[in-house]
């Protein structure tokens, strides 16, 4: 990972490390608190959801993105605006299902896993599972029920990190937001 940082982006980079390390501390704490990887994955998803339902407001306020007309537009906004704004990366949107209700986000790099080496005894851990919860929570707030999961993970030996997103249904506006 080459980091040719100028003074200006230096502090931004440092801040990114703060997030990465904090996330790492959270994951390892969860690993200590819960007996198995599956439970940790669930917790990460839950916590991600809690973050997502609040993050969406921050996003809508700062991005001046209007209402998305279809799932394709949503995918583009997620990849080109949201990921860029919060993680400084722009995943590519690919592998659309014929029905147009499912797609993949391919991440060449994932700031959450900088410096991380997964030990052998955590082969079932989906380290970045927080992201799935965040996406799910955020989209629920804009009336979209989605299913999000990791299809590939560089930490587990794959070449890229792939997040698969599937549109389930539209949520009626008058249902209150659930908090777990």
């Amino acid at each position, binding site marked *: 990972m080459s980091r040719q940082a100028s003074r200006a982006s230096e502090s931004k980079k440092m801040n990114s490390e703060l997030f990465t*390390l904090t996330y790492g501390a959270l994951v390892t704490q969860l690993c200590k608190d819960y007996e198995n990887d599956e439970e940790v994955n669930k*917790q990460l998803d839950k*916590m991600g959801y809690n973050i997502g339902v609040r993050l969406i407001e921050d996003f809508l306020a700062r991005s001046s993105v209007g209402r998305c007309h279809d799932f394709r537009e949503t995918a583009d906004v997620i990849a080109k605006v949201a990921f860029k704004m919060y993680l400084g990366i722009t995943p590519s949107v690919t592998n659309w299902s014929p029905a147009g209700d499912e797609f993949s986000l391919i991440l060449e790099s994932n700031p959450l896993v900088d410096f991380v080496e997964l030990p052998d005894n955590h082969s079932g851990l989906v380290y970045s599972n927080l992201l799935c919860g965040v996406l799910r929570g955020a989209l629920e707030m804009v009336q979209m029920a989605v299913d999000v999961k990791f299809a590939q993970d560089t930490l587990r030996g794959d070449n890229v990190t792939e997040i698969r997103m599937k549109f389930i249904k539209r949520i009626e506006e008058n249902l209150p937001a659930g908090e777990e």
Partner: protein
Amino acid sequence: MADEALFHFLHNELIHYAYKSAEQGEVENGRCITRLENMGFRVGQGLIERFTKDTARFKDELDVMKFICKDFWTSVFKKQIDNLRTNHQGIYVLQDNKFRLLTQMSAGKQYLEHAPRYLAFTCGMVRGGLSNLGVKSIVTAEVSVMPACKFQVMIQKM
């Protein structure tokens, strides 16, 4: 390059997690704070290792504290510590008049009560950073008037 907002959201969720599984009572409150502090400690160790990779060797303890107040604080909180005081006998007080993790909160009385939760992780970071530089300490914090707070570092002789 993660956005600052993302850290704030994560930090809040960390606090929520530390407290949700706890029961009522003073003891539990202490345990939650300790958990947050411990997570901060590990992060502080890592951050300091990165931040001091290209810096010159530190001269002495005061040199280290100044680094924490200037470079470390700026890298982590985008601003320096506003005021550093010491009794030259191992006690340092770091004052941040606009602590970034408190600025999101209102200044109401009920929030003051919860303020320690928002400081625990940072206390840990400072303690972890110092520890990795060979300085053993106890770090506590208090809020008098939001969003200003003071971090007190007590150096422990090894």
